[in-house]
């Protein structure tokens, strides 16, 4: 009994000293990387820019902190042969351990995405312990990715947060872009029946000024970060940009619309009636007819009228039916235009191939090899749209309609 206690006592005492504090690291020793930008130099090496959060300068984090006087981020640049080597090289400049578990944004420059593709980069990211597969990927258009992560933002103290939030909100409220994370990208990239999409960002304004505190001292700011376009990838490389209405059409077909405005022309007047989608469902059916694949896309939209700029009697159900018809045409046009564009570039961004794989796996095996280059461009896609006006908003007839009646 006594010996048992003595032994267990010694084990208990020795244990902490023998094991040490394995892999323990204090918060003070971490440099939290919020965004990681990758550019490419002419000599083929990568240039990585790290956006680090400087916790002491994040307003609200600490009472009486140096909020609003210093930037809440710090950036460091390093070069290397692959993305992780870049990170290793950066540690000579940063006094702390670069910590990637909270990296929410991976910015790739357009140049790099077009020339080299993302395949080799993403492997290192996914293989690494700290990187999350939920990290969002974006492409910086026309500017260096390194410059993009150096731009300060006013409302969101950490610029990476701002980029992700605007991505999420435009996807949700506007339906013109798409948030893609590592996982989604890789899944689509390895699938033969689908190609990945990545949102693009531009910075408009004076970039150099936007990197300094001047950016935050005026209400307008020297430059703004904007979501712009959806990048289409083929075999891991950026091949095309989808923009404007076409990008909305992409989201219609992809069943990704949550809320989106649709403006229609009415009696010759451009964009006279604005409609807002509140619920949407897209069903894609893939079949083969005589060895040829046939795709039918059924879009069902439901929404409210938002603004009416022409005198129209919306209390009349027949008028509403006519509006619905125009809406259907408009959505159909958008969707078909996008599909045609995709067929032109031979990229099945909608995952039609995947659908066919699911519905007819045997036939898919025959088509798989030449799907992107032969079958998809020649595809016969039948788009049917069913639009429904749930409410006319908080008013019945527009003021204009009532005014006209008075003058009659």
């Amino acid at each position, binding site marked *: 009994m006594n010996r048992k206690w003595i032994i267990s006592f010694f084990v208990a005492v020795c244990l902490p000293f023998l094991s040490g504090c394995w892999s323990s690291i204090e918060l003070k020793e971490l440099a939290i990387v919020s965004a990681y930008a990758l550019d490419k130099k002419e000599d083929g090496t990568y240039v990585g820019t790290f956006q680090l959060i400087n916790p002491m300068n994040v307003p609200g984090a600490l009472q009486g902190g140096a909020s609003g006087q210093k930037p809440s981020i710090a950036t460091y640049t390093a070069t290397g042969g692959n993305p992780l080597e870049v990170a290793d090289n950066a540690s000579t400049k940063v006094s702390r351990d670069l910590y990637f*578990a909270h990296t929410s944004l991976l910015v790739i420059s357009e140049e790099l995405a077009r020339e080299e593709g993302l395949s080799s980069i993403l492997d290192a990211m996914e293989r690494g312990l700290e990187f*999350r597969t939920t990290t969002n990927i974006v492409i910086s258009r026309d500017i260096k990715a390194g410059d993009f992560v150096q731009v300060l933002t006013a409302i969101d103290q*950490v610029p990476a947060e701002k980029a992700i939030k605007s991505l999420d909100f435009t996807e949700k409220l506007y339906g013109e872009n798409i948030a893609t994370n590592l996982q989604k990208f890789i899944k689509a990239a390895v699938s033969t029946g689908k190609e990945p999409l990545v949102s693009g960002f531009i910075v408009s304004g004076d970039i150099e000024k936007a990197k300094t505190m001047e950016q935050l001292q005026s209400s307008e700011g020297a430059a703004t970060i904007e979501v712009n376009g959806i990048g289409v990838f083929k075999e891991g490389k950026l091949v095309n940009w989808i923009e404007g209405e076409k990008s909305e059409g992409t989201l219609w077909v992809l069943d990704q619309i949550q809320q989106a405005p649709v403006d229609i022309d009415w009696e010759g007047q451009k964009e006279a009636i604005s409609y807002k989608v509140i619920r949407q469902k897209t069903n894609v059916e893939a079949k083969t007819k005589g060895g040829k694949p046939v795709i039918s896309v059924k879009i069902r939209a439901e929404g409210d009228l938002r603004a009416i700029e022409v005198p129209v009697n919306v209390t009349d159900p027949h008028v509403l039916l006519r509006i619905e018809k125009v809406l259907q045409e408009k959505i159909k046009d958008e969707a078909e235009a996008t599909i045609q564009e995709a067929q032109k570039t031979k990229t099945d961004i909608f995952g039609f191939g995947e659908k066919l794989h699911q519905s007819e796996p045997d036939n898919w095996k025959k088509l798989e090899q030449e799907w992107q280059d032969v079958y998809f461009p020649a595809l016969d896609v039948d788009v049917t749209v069913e639009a429904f006006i749930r409410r006319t908003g908080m008013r019945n007839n527009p003021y204009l309609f009532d005014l006209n009646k008075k003058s009659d």
Partner: protein
Amino acid sequence: MSYRKFLKKMKPKEQRKDLEKVEQKSIGTSITENLNIIKQKTGNSPDIIIRMLTFSHDPEVSTAIVHVDGLVDNPTINEFLVQSMEDSVQEKLEEKDLFKVFSEKVVAVSSLETLKDWDSLFLALLSGDTVILADGKNEALIASTRGGERRLVEQSDSEITLRGSKEGFTESINTNTALVRRIIKNPNLWVESMNLGKQTNTDLSIMYINGIVDTDIVKEVRQRLARVNLDAILDSGYIEQVIEDESSGLFPTITHTERPDAVAGNLLEGRVAIFVSGTPHVLIVPAVMIQFFQTPEDYYVRFPISTLIRMLRVFMFLISLIGPAFYVAVTTFHQEMIPTDLLVIIASQTESVPFPAIVEALIMEVTFEILREAGLRMPNKISATISIVGALVIGQGVIQAGIVSPAMVIVVATTAIASLATPNYDIAISARLLRFAFMLSAAIAGFYGIILGLIMLIVHLASLRSFGIPYLTPLAPLEWKSLKDTIIRGPIWSFNERPESLHPQNPVRQGKNQKPLPPLKRRMVRADTKEGDKNES
């Protein structure tokens, strides 16, 4: 005689020799000698009161009344003993057997008995009974006159409920057993008395319900009590420590309560209560872990509410066990688990703190333990000062000086509140000690260390027994039927069986179909009357 007295005062050692000389087993016939023995044995203590009564018609026959001041009920002695004996002096005593006359005609107290040996005489005398000695009699009459100043039945300080009885046990064992008897009016409520403690001669009772309790448990309790040979028993805690199963473990295997309703409830489940004179804390055996998260009030409020509260208690216990450990692990090993915004806040707070998280946690925890201990032991008037100083030291000073981060203060404060909210102090204090072990294991190996500690803890708990009952019953071993009174508290109408693990002789608790059955039609009780049927709106 005076020479002896002189010697006694001068040389205490001599006195012992004298005592040995007069050491006699049974009472002698001479009253003076008997009284001398009493005086000698009690060292002539002034609170031993001896009153001589002589009968005028027969001066040869003298009697003496002996009692201890303060332990007896004075009105009883005055009215029913002294007064009536003096009255009887006027009468002519024809009967030869004086004690028979006394017990049948003169002394009007509830209980009278005759004793012949000194040991029981002293025990009775010191318990508050009055001893009547008579010349020529080699026995003593013991009149039950126990009384004196005692604390009244008050509300228990340590176990407070909003609903339910406000009565709490007192220091008097008779009052305590009576409080339980008042709840369970059943002849099967059996009490066994014994006397333990070589010096203190403390009264001790075990109580159980015959016909419900497993006789093996009672036998086990008797056996364990029989081998108790302590010098003194000042509280039920002494008994607890010599009869419990695991004396060196951190977890209590015997529970105690100050509430008669809690004792009654446990007796009805088939447990045994041990009352100890001089303490309001009544021991209950066997005890299982889950009991420490239950209060009598759980059964008085409706079951969904008490279920939620019980879950909350287990949650609080977990917080008080691993709260700071969790924080230390998450900030030094698993930073990826903290949401980014929160991480930035915590990081900005720890930026200026010079210590690692574990040192911070230890500083705060030790400070808190010091404050708690100080607050507990200080007189009420000073404890207010302590709380002010504590609030300033913890709340303001430490943070402003940048020694501890505000997040750590929040964690420690939450842990402290959670620990104080655990209903049973015994289990809360176990968690309080184990918390430090968990903090260290978290600092060494993060969540891995915490999980390792929890596994070891559960293994230890599963190995414990309380009077033959596994400590984690009914969770391990699993008893489906008893599960409805664990972390969840099922409805009263579903408690048809007593807990299986206690092997009750009569396992059926109540009639079936106790669920209330309201009428199918939702109508008012007085629907027949004219006013009644308009009530439903």
